[in-house]
């Protein structure tokens, strides 16, 4: 894990080439975090992967999170690993929810990094499956775990938990 000055150096290097790409830096859950603008996600990832002195060549995980009351609502997390120095860094692409602006069917979009990290193919499909985040340029963006005809994005925080309403009138009368 890069320490705080190291993280600022990485930020400076990115900012020099892509001004405005990095929104924030920080440390959370024992991991250095770079919060970035989703428009620059491929540029930032390729810089971290290929620039001399960086060498984060291994994408150990790609996942998403829904921070519902917060703005921006979604974040796609890229966990990168430098296997020479055994250093990890988290890149967090913050995504607004386009459905909040009235268009209910609109889905958040971000560029796919499958060209850069082939392992991301299934993980991006999983993120699409559960959060409805569209990865532009993905070769085969379909649902991967839920049935093909499933409607909805079940890991979003506004998705109902499920289960069954209680149908016993006794319970309804006394506790309902």
């Amino acid at each position: 894990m890069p320490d705080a000055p190291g993280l600022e150096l990485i930020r400076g290097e990115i900012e020099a080439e892509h001004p405005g790409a990095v929104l924030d830096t920080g440390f959370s859950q024992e991991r250095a975090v770079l919060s970035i603008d989703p428009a620059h996600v491929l540029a930032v990832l390729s810089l971290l992967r290929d620039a001399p002195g960086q060498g984060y060549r291994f994408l150990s995980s790609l996942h998403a999170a829904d921070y519902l009351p917060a703005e921006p609502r979604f974040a796609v997390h890229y966990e990168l690993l430098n296997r020479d120095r055994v250093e990890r860094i988290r890149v967090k692409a913050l995504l607004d929810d386009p459905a909040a602006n009235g268009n209910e069917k609109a889905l958040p979009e971000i560029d796919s990094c499958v060209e850069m990290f082939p392992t991301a193919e299934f993980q991006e499909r999983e993120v699409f499956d559960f959060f409805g985040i569209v990865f532009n340029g993905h070769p085969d963006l379909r649902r991967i775990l839920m049935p093909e005809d499933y409607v909805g994005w079940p890991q979003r925080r506004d998705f109902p938990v499920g289960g069954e309403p209680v149908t016993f009138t006794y319970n309804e009368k006394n506790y309902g």
Partner: protein
Amino acid sequence: MRERQLRARDMLRGDLEGEELERYVEEKVVMTNFEKMLGWARSNSIFPLTFGLACCAIEAPISIVTARYDLARFGAEALRASPRQADMIILSGRVSIKMAPVVRRLYDQMLEPKWAISMGACSSSGGMFSNYAVVQGADKFMPIDLHIPGCPPRPEAVLYGFTKLQRKIQGNPDQGWRARYRAEGSEEWARGGPRSAPSGEAAEAYSAARELLRA
């Protein structure tokens, strides 16, 4: 014992007569009807399907056929790997909504008569998985003859449920579930049986679907 052996020898030689012969026949012959005999035979020669869904599979199809619990005592030790040869299915575990059509298809492929046991809390009611991925009770998509509670049930509980199922098979073979679930016509029989040709309705739906696919 010796006395009975001697009596049987006398009977075979034709030496038994009159009241003694009457008593002998009363002791040796059981009167019943064909339905009861058929139910008795079916209940004691059940072929379960080799099939497991989740953690309950460790208790049901795996544990109860071992020497300690020994399902062979009840005549059901021949687990079949094909649903066409099986006549009982144990739903051992939670059924996810993606698995439900597969389970239903397996059940439909089994030959009549057939029985289904829903084992454990998950397959009976969804259990602790009250979420988007799990069917809240397997009887939402197929008929279940018997529910065994537990999480997971002990193998003894599964065997107790199994003997209950045997009693059910002997007592009342037709539960009328096809009428309840409007499932007349979904039976599958061996080749040459009354339903070996697809029903007209199914054939029409099938050809319509094929045309849609081609278009």
